[in-house]
């Protein structure tokens, strides 16, 4: 396992994730945006692997990269959106103001990170590997049990709601 070369892996994966993220925003055609989103998800999963969160990385691959983004790509491919490609970014003072605003927010966050004493204090915990899955499960079913049950109700609601929203009159079968 790539524990010793985690730094090199972080830079490579981080660069790939950032470039794919910029690709999501900047690409004109929504299909390319969706495929760049897939690359971002895979890059973030790789970063979770370097952070020794193996279970979360696998779940990110299964749930995000394997299901949610497939849904996005399928919806974008089903509706041919080439007409909307030209109206991707409007020009003018509105756009510039929004970009400057986001730049200010980014600057504030970065200065907060660098001025704080976060990076200097702790050593990462070694051995937060396979045994952590069991501990995560124990915590999930004892301390966070209420959130867990609420999330399952939320999933049920979303399934019923999504089917109800996207249904066509008369249904698909006779």
């Amino acid at each position, binding site marked *: *396992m*790539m524990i010793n070369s985690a730094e090199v892996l972080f830079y490579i994966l981080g660069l790939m994730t950032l470039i794919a993220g910029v690709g999501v925003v900047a690409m004109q055609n929504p*299909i390319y945006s969706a*495929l760049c989103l*897939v690359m971002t998800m*895979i890059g973030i*999963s790789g970063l979770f692997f370097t952070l020794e969160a*193996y*279970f979360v*990385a*696998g*779940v*990110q*691959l*299964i749930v995000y*990269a*394997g*299901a949610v983004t*497939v849904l996005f*790509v*399928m919806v974008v*491919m*089903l509706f041919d959106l080439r007409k909307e490609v030209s109206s991707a970014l409007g020009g003018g003072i509105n756009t510039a103001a929004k970009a400057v605003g986001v730049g200010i927010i980014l600057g504030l966050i970065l200065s907060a990170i660098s001025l704080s004493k976060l990076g200097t204090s702790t050593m990462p915990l070694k051995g937060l*590997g*396979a045994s952590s*899955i069991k501990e995560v499960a124990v915590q999930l079913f004892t301390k966070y049990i209420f959130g867990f049950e609420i999330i399952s109700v939320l999933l049920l609601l979303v399934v019923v709601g999504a089917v109800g929203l996207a249904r066509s009159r008369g249904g*698909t*079968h006779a």
Partner: protein
Amino acid sequence: MGRDTFEITVNVVKMLVVFLMMVQMVPILVWLERRGSAFIQHRFGPNRVGPLGLTQLLADAVKFICKEEFLPQKAVALLYYGAPVVALVPAALALASIPFSTPVEVSPFEMLGQAWGPYTFYIQGFHMNVGIIYILGVSSLGAYSLLMAGWGSSNKYSLMGALRASAQMISYELALGLAIVAVVLLYGTFDLAEMVSAQKGPLTFHMFSREYVVSVLPNWGIFFQPLGFVLFFTSVFAESNRLPFDLAESEGELVAGFHTEYGGFKMLLFFMGEYGHMMVSSSLLAIFYFGGHHIPFLTEASVHDWALSLAGQETTVASIITSLVFLASFLVKVALFLWFFIWVRWTLPRFRYDHLMDLGWKTMLPWSIFNIILTAVILFLAQGLVL
């Protein structure tokens, strides 16, 4: 990857061998498919090129490579050329984390005037402690090759075929994942090597904290999870787009589905990906339900002793012989399942699309959830009603 040069070299060679193994199994599988289907259909298959027609696919590969390589006029080049690659990569990644055999223990030895220490080499590409989650995640990335091929071909029928096929794949991933959840509940670990080592010995049932040993049967997973085996077996057909679930290719219905506009070497890469998925699925079937590399009624220790007597008490060579014996056992099981895949393909008719989606959502999903609940209840009872 390793502490010193020898270990790193052996690990890199191991990964290459695993990848090449996947690529080289394809000619054998295609030969098996063509001859096997021919015998099922009461005709001869290709039997002219080489003995028994074994080098037919060599001739086919030369033909594919020499074919004209074209790009349809309105096709999107990046997606069109990238789709076969994306079909091949997830299968190769998933095959790399499957344990094929017992680990090889190398005792310290002398070479080139330097003492190389004791090593343990696992017979897999790399050792993952969350093996099954990783395999599930990487296999679900195979849906993108279909979508990229369907869109990149700029062809209405390809797009329809690709959308139907990817909808089928993500629907059956649910039943697959839930069947795997039941197996993980049973063995209590995500690590595939540990699941294999939990299946050794004779069949042992625990009920109310007493043990019942049935010594004529091995301790394989299929005796604990029969319903799960049926569900998993059906889902992997849908995952690798094999008949009876092959709406993606549906020869004769959708022209040729998502790979209509592909010819020559690119189509060969698609089939390599499909056979790679088949190999991963067969290996998972062998590991979860048929004891992995274990041979019934033989323990690893007895095989190791036999190998020691054969090798003149040298532990390194004995360890290698033991690994080879168990590797052969594992490959026999995988070959059996691959033959099942081919057999079912030429026996059952294809599902209609709405029947297929109904089966996936309305039948397999409830039965998978029932399987999990049943497994959990029985495991709870087995430890003696202690909370």
